[in-house]
């Protein structure tokens, strides 16, 4: 819904972009997809209890951001966004490695990947 | 120099006590406090009383120059008088604790001595931040004294004491910093010099002044304590060790009234003029309300504690009368209350050491067993009641007269916010004071002898205090200086009054342009015409 809000009321240059036409697929479409990916990531993170799925959801969020970066990069006619995406991918990879290691460690302890299992620290 | 010494010597003594052997603790404390007293006397000797309104004996050390903060000291007659009171009480507190404190003496005396430094600092500060810092730092030793050496409920009392006053004073800091910021916006540089800030503060609009006053009062009224923010005091008094109660009543409460005198009155004259009636009302309610509460207490110490609330109501009342007589009375009240109520706490402590109770249900007619104690108890009660010839009278009389005069369109060109009814209703406090204090004396000192059950063999019951029936020479030695003070200030207060005249005139000069009739509340958001201040005397 955020996206819709954005799309209908957003900054003038977005409107310009839409009306001026980048062909059939405009910045708006890219952004829409990116936002959907990000939102799905958020929803997945909140809704799923499996640690691996949750991690994948965050990856989805990262990739959503990446997609938006590339779209903006294209829109601004510079490569900064693309460079950024490359770094983001690196970070995501590092995080993935970390996540997998952690998941293995945890699985060894509890034989379960349910996030709810880990709630002894509270208050 | 001497002011620095008065701050540093207690600290040094505390350090020596902490590092020295246990047996030497009280001796060291006694020595240190006597040296402090001597230096205070010397300071009084050096002070130019003819120029008592000027800040003297000053000196400063830069601390945070980039913030404009200096450790800057200096006293006028008012501050010096309160420092003298502090220095006088200090050796007496040490002396009075000899038999009461029998364990962990090093900690006790070290903190007791450490307490003196910030108290002197508050009175001697000429820098706002230094004042505030000292104001806060008094909390720590007191907190420790109460929580380590208090009676059964000490933890709660100490925490309440600390948090209550701490909360208030943070708000006061906000108010003070606001003024400092205003000053910095005007002058382009941050300064915490009280005299400078005073001038800026006076030029603030009424609305600003009111907020600043509220913030300051949030801190200071708690300390005084003014109704309805007084409830920490009875608890703290009841739980504190004797010397703690003495210093609490004697000096710590005066920090609040002194701060009102030093900051609220000259900083925000328009707001004070606007809200003086409200403050006076609170004071009066406190006088009568706390007085009546005293009357139904069962614990002697709590009674005297509530009486402090009542008494300091007079003090604040005299101050917001905004005239010389009221302010004179109020300032004198600070000293007098320190002497007489401090002494009452000593007396109660001495009784407690012998009977291990303070309940009026268990005690009675002690005059028969302890005539000398009874004499002193009666004496200080009378000083507290405000009997003419003793110190309490002069101050109470002048506070009420100032209040009365404040609204009277009488001769002498005195204007002010209060008036007849304030004095009349506050005056009932005189009656109430007589009621509750005589009630206490009648119960505890007079009447048929009543001692707590099992008291007869107190030497084996309570191993430590082998005290004779009546007061020892040491205990008399504690009380006599206070009694002398009470008599001298009651019979011959003139030198003190004369010395206070000039500083009060400085303070009240802030009100020269205030038109008390105009402040009806709705019309004015105007700043006061900046009143030309009399030049504060330079430090020498």
């Amino acid at each position, binding site marked *: 819904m955020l996206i819709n809000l954005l799309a209908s009321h957003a900054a003038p240059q977005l409107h310009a972009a839409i009306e001026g036409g980048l062909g059939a697929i405009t910045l708006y479409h890219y952004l829409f997809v990116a936002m959907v990916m990000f939102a799905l990531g958020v929803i997945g993170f909140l809704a799923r209890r499996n640690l691996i799925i949750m991690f994948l959801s965050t990856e989805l969020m990262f990739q959503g951001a990446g997609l938006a970066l590339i779209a903006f990069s294209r829109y601004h006619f510079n490569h900064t966004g693309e460079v950024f995406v490359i770094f983001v991918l690196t970070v995501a990879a590092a995080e993935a490695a970390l996540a997998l290691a952690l998941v293995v460690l945890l699985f060894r302890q509890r034989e379960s990947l349910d996030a709810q299992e880990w709630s002894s620290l509270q208050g | 120099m001497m002011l620095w010494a008065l701050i540093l010597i207690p600290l040094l003594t505390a350090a020596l006590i902490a590092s020295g052997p246990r047996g030497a603790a009280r001796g060291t404390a006694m020595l240190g406090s006597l040296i402090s007293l001597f230096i205070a006397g010397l300071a009084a000797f050096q002070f130019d009383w003819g120029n008592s309104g000027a800040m003297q004996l000053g000196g400063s050390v830069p601390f945070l120059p980039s913030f404009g903060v200096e450790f800057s000291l200096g006293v006028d007659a008012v501050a010096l008088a309160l420092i003298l009171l502090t220095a006088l009480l200090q050796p007496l507190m040490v002396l009075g604790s000899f038999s009461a404190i029998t364990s962990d003496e090093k900690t006790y005396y070290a903190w007791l001595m450490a307490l003196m430094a910030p108290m002197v600092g508050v009175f001697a500060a000429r820098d706002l931040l230094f004042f505030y810092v000292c104001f806060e730092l008094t909390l720590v030793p007191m907190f420790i004294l109460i929580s380590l050496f208090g009676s059964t409920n000490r933890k709660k009392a100490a925490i309440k004491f600390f948090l209550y006053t701490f909360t208030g004073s943070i*708000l006061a800091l906000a108010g003070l910093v606001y003024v400092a910021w205003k000053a910095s916006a005007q002058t382009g540089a941050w300064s915490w010099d009280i005299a400078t800030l005073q001038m800026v503060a006076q030029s603030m609009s009424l609305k600003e002044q009111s907020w600043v006053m509220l913030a300051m009062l949030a801190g200071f009224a708690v300390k005084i304590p003014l109704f309805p923010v007084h409830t920490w005091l009875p608890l703290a008094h009841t739980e504190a060790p004797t010397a703690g109660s003495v210093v609490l009543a004697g000096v710590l409460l005066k920090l609040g009234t002194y701060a009102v005198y030093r900051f609220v009155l000259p900083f925000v004259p328009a707001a004070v003029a606007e809200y003086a009636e409200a403050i006076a009302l609170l004071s009066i309610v406190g006088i009568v309300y706390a007085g009546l509460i005293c009357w139904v207490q069962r614990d002697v110490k709590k009674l005297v504690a509530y009486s402090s609330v009542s008494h300091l109501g007079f003090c604040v009342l005299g101050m917001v009368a905004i005239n010389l007589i009221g302010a004179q009375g109020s300032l004198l009240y600070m000293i007098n209350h320190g002497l007489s109520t401090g002494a009452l706490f000593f007396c109660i402590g001495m009784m407690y050491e012998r009977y291990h109770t303070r309940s009026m249900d268990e005690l009675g007619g002690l005059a028969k067993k302890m005539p000398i104690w009874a004499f002193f108890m009666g004496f200080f009660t009378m000083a507290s009641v405000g009997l003419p010839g003793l110190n309490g009278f002069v101050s109470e009389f002048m506070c009420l007269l100032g209040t009365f005069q404040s609204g009277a369109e009488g001769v002498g060109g005195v204007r002010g916010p209060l008036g007849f009814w304030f004095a009349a209703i506050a005056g009932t406090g005189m009656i109430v004071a007589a009621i509750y204090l005589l009630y206490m004396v009648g119960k505890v000192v007079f009447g048929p002898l009543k001692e707590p059950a099992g008291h007869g063999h107190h030497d084996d019951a309570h191993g430590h205090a082998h005290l004779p029936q009546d007061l020892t020479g040491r205990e008399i030695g504690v009380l006599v200086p206070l009694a002398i003070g009470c008599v001298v200030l009651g019979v011959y207060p003139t030198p003190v009054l004369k010395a206070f005249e000039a500083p009060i005139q400085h303070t009240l000069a802030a009100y020269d342009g205030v038109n008390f009739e105009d402040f009806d509340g709705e019309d004015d958001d105007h700043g006061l015409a900046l009143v030309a201040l009399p030049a504060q005397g330079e430090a020498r």
Partner: protein
Amino acid sequence: MMSLLAAMSAGPDVPPMIAKLSIIVPEIVMFVGTCVVLMLGLSKTSTIRRASVGAAGLALIIAGIAAATGPQGVADSLLPHVMPYAKVLIAAVGFILLLLLTGTVDREVEAEADAGKPFDVLRANRAEFYAFFMFSLTGLMLCASADDLIWLFLALELTSLPTYVMVSISTARSRSQEAGVKYFFLGAFSAAMLLMGFTFIYGATGYTQLFGYHSIASVIGAQGSLGPIATLGFVMAIVGLCFKIAAVPMHFYTPDVYQGAAAGVSAMLAFVPKTAGFLGLMLLTSAVGWGLGGGYGLPSELRLLLWVVAALTMTFGNVLALMQRSVKRILAYSSIAHSGYMLVGIIAGPGAWGAGAPGNGLGAVLFYLMSYGVMNVGAFAVVASLEKQSGGEAEDVDDLRGLCKTHPLLGWIMVISSVTMLGLPFAIGFLGKFYLFTAGLRAGEVALIVVMGLNSAIAAFYYLRLAGAPLLEHRDEHEASLVVTAFNSRKLAGLISAVGVLALLPFADRLATLSDHAASYGASSEAAQASASQAEHVDARSVTDH
């Protein structure tokens, strides 16, 4: 100094790339040190393995010296002088933290090795542990050097990622792993938020460069307002950074993670990510500038956001700390609260150029970070140094009772540390708060200052508990006494912290001046300077406006 700055950045003979490199010399030193530590830790010889700590310490010292003597500013940054201050601070606090971290991992492995068994490289992770620590600090220093969103993002991640590992491996208990998993997953979630925010900022402005001729700052300055996309970007970025500084609503992980991790690691978490977050916040807000929002501060949306976040953060932290029994949880919540206080400085902003210390909110933040970094270590050091006889950390408040009698050194460290954090006058913590006070009032944030004051009072309650338990209470006779760990360096860390808070007092003015200088804003940009001074003229809003 300015000439040096000019020489480093724009000298004709120095290629731009090299000039850029010269400002990250400390990071390079750290990186080299990290590599050395990694390798040393794998040695079969126990002495050499032990030397890894020394190597780390050495690297920190050299990095600190390099930062202190290196270039003092970057020409095209709006915060040109923040680097040396931040890096020296990071190196110094890092050094104390290093002392505190000794012996955190590999105790069994080392014990076995000492007992004569062959050293099992695969099981050992001391080298990794210190290396991660060093990486994290490197990341932190890079945050200070950042002038680009990409750089900032990578530096923040470099700061965070190692800490996830450190938390997980800090003890063998499952609590540490639980802490690790919570920390990591929520961290990843927030990193995505941060990234999304950066994306929007980039999308709105077309630049990732924060300052300079073609940069986010210049675009915003030219537009004179943020615009919705950029606003959204900044909001999301700030919220993402809130995770690093443990601010509401991203604070949830803090107590659990602090409690689950070893005390030394918790101490590190209280300083390292927080500093990273605040450096990031300072950079982002600097890019926006304090001249946009109705003329007197941040744009109203951001100001409101930070205002609410600050107020909630300090309140949440303090009221929840009241409910705790665990010292570590108390310190965790207090860490949240301290973040709330520091946000006041961010809101206040730097004030007029050259106006001096008391009004510089960013300077206040830097000063507070410094004082917090020093005083906070002490409390954690006490917890790290004590163990119950049954094993496990002595983290309950009641375990501290009578500590001044039984273990005077640790007891007094706890007392001094708590009292300093309480903000009792003259302790360095008071000066930090006072600095924030003056800065906040200078910016007219009276209400926030009052909230902060009341929160300090609430905080006094639990700090009094922390200080009172060792000093004023007595340990029950029948209770088993505590054991002090063999790692004297932890006590040393505590001692340094306790002595530090006192020893820094005489230098408080110098430090405040340094903080102010380090946070001096807008040196290079005429426009930003103008807007900042314009802001100063109008930010003197009276209390009546609220």
